[in-house]
């Protein structure tokens, strides 16, 4: 955790590089030590609800955006939680660009492959068909097979892309994995 600095974090090299875009304005940045974050499952929703409410506070209908953003952010945070990354920090930054919010989640790379696998599945071609196939499989065959168990564990992000029209991307920055989510205001 950094000491308070005279340099605003938005002007420091941000892992996502989003701050470099001149039309993007910073909304909020939150960092969580992984150890405390992993203390409780409810931390995922505490963080999602708070950050969503904060980032929606200037909208004409803040409740609508709060509900959507918290829903999407929570799935991403739950994935981080399930990935059980090692010690380090989880950093969530939210920027605004015109009619959308850019959300970046950076977490330590250590841990299992869930994050990479989940985003890869969610960003493959025809996410809708992939989701529907996997979902139907879940209902007919409760996941006895490893494939289905894995699919079920990863389906949170896939659903966001397939049903809710969210855009996702993943990149690595040093010792951090960074998940990007684009959330339209409406």
């Amino acid at each position, binding site marked *: 955790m950094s000491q308070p600095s005279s340099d605003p974090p938005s002007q420091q090299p941000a892992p996502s590089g989003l701050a470099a875009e001149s039309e993007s304005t910073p909304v909020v940045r939150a960092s969580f030590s992984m150890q405390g974050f992993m203390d409780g499952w409810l931390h995922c929703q505490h*963080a999602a609800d*708070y950050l969503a409410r904060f980032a929606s506070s200037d909208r004409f209908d803040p409740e609508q955006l709060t509900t959507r953003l918290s829903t999407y952010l929570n799935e991403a945070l739950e994935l981080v939680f399930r990935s059980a990354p090692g010690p380090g920090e989880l950093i969530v930054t939210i920027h605004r660009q015109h009619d959308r919010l850019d959300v970046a989640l950076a977490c330590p790379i250590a841990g299992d492959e869930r994050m990479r696998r989940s985003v890869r599945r969610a960003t493959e071609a025809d996410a809708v068909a992939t989701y529907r196939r996997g979902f139907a499989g879940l209902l007919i065959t409760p996941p006895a097979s490893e494939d289905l168990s894995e699919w079920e564990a990863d389906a949170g992000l896939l659903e966001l892309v397939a049903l809710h029209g969210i855009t996702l991307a993943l990149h690595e920055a040093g010792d951090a994995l960074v998940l990007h989510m684009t959330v339209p205001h409406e």
Partner: protein
Amino acid sequence: MNECIDCIGDFRDDWPSTEGGVRGPAVCVSVVFYPADFAVRWSQCSATADFFAEYFAAVEACRRDDPAARDEFIGTLSYVVNELVENAVKFSVGETVEVTVGVEDDELIVMAANQILATTATPLVEKFRELLAGDPQELLFARVEANAEDPEAGVSGLGFLTMMSDYAARLGWRFAAVHDNPHNVLLTTMARLEVRKP
């Protein structure tokens, strides 16, 4: 780190601690606002306070099984965070306000950092020294009375005195130079609370 001009009260200059590149303390959460770009209203201050309180109530080191003890913990942390955040946002002249809460060695620390005009630093130093000089309960009582007699007088420091008197918080402040802006000073306010054993 910014060059320290002055440290007053129970400010821990070594917190959050780092040792050989490994960051500590074990549990820490920090939120940065950008009030020049995204306005921070009073409702967001209280939402921030509630968030920190609920979050840390679920952290292992602070967890309480007894609902009354849990409520007390939440009430205390929420009050302290709210006071520090509101002050920091109200008096901020820089681009960011940063709030940090962490728990380490049975101590819960709340910290808020914001830039202020350098010209206001000296009078503030005096005010803070005054707050720390006497018995917080007596000072609080005197200021509440003064406020009642003349509500227009704008008595300050009630929030800090309440923290010290009612919540047993130890307060400290750090004034530091801002590298690229000699007109501003970085003020960091710290409140230290004991995490009571169940």
